[in-house]
């Protein structure tokens, strides 16, 4: 027992004497002291803080890559070189340019690392021409959304469509093309509405057929809500009372025909299988 105690003691002493352990203890003590009595900001601390900020800024500069493109004619004036990793210079100096002031240097440095600064100072020069197809698609999408049954979404999408339309007209897309896009968008929305309605009616009919009216009541109700939304959407698209009672009945008839055809296909397949099995049994027996 004594031996074991002695061993334990020696091991604990070894740990205490270890320089790493001592350093850790000291650091902990310092932290505690700082928490209890916070020291004023010394010069050394300030310098160390500054170096941290500096390295962070440098890292940001290295990582930062902006996808925003500026107009080609204005871009040339703004190209600058990096000298000694710190200083910035104008490549093409303007005529009234005399000396590089600190302010200019600072703003140029900010342009390199801060996208918001670019937006604030040079947003009027951002070139959207390369993104025209994307913007056109967005315009169509927002136009379709602006005719949504959801009032809040419709209003927000109207605002968005207005903004995107404005940008497109700035780029130089003619009004005729914008009108054409609008027509295309509404036609697409109309086709989507018709397809969705057909799909929903098909589903409701199938549910009522297989599950029965009582069991499939909940699902049928869900489909009914969606059908009502589609009817409302069609009204908003400008086709008022398109989904009249007679038109819905026509759609129901076509969907019933479709279901019947599918069942007939399956029946013929099963009949074939049945005949094949019977023949097999007859030949084996």
């Amino acid at each position, binding site marked *: 027992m004594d031996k074991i105690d002695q061993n334990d003691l020696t091991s604990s002493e070894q740990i205490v004497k270890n320089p790493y352990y001592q350093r850790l203890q000291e650091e902990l003590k310092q932290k505690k002291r700082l928490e209890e009595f916070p020291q004023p900001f010394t010069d050394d601390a300030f310098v160390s803080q500054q170096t941290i900020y500096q390295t962070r800024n440098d890292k940001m500069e290295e990582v930062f890559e902006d996808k925003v493109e500026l107009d080609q004619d204005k871009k040339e004036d703004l190209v600058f070189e990096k000298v000694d990793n710190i200083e910035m210079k104008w490549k093409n100096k303007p005529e009234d340019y005399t000396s590089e002031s600190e302010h200019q240097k600072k703003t140029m440095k900010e342009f390199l690392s801060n996208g918001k600064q670019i937006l604030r100072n040079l947003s009027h020069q951002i070139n959207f021409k390369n993104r025209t197809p994307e913007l056109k698609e967005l315009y169509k999408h927002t136009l379709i959304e602006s005719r949504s049954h959801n009032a809040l979404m419709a209003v927000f999408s109207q605002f968005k469509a207005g903004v995107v339309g404005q940008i497109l007209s700035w780029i130089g897309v003619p009004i005729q093309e914008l009108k054409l896009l609008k027509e295309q968008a509404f036609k697409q929305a109309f086709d989507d509405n018709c397809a969705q309605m057909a799909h929903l009616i098909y589903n409701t009919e199938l549910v009522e057929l297989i599950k029965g009216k009582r069991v499939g009541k909940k699902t049928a109700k869900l489909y009914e809500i969606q059908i009502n939304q589609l009817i409302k959407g069609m009204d908003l698209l400008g086709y008022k009372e398109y989904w009249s009672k007679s038109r819905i009945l026509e759609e129901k008839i076509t969907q019933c025909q479709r279901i019947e055809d599918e*069942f*007939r296909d399956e029946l013929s397949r*099963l009949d074939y299988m049945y005949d094949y099995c019977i023949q097999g049994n007859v030949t084996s027996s």
Partner: protein
Amino acid sequence: MKKQAINAHLSPEGQINIVQLEKKIKQINALILKVKARRIRYQNELDQQVVLKVKKQSSLLEKALSFFKLNTQSGVNR
């Protein structure tokens, strides 16, 4: 649903069960009859709708015609 319908007549070993197959064929036949009945019902409803629409339009036309006749009669009288 289709997969379920097709696989219903298969045993766990994947062999075709003739009794199940017969049952399935009967079920599908019943479903086809149901769909047919439903389709005919919808067709009748649509016909009724069309008849109602035509009746409404004819009554409107009759009204217009009587109004026109009255007007012309009063014109002749005058």
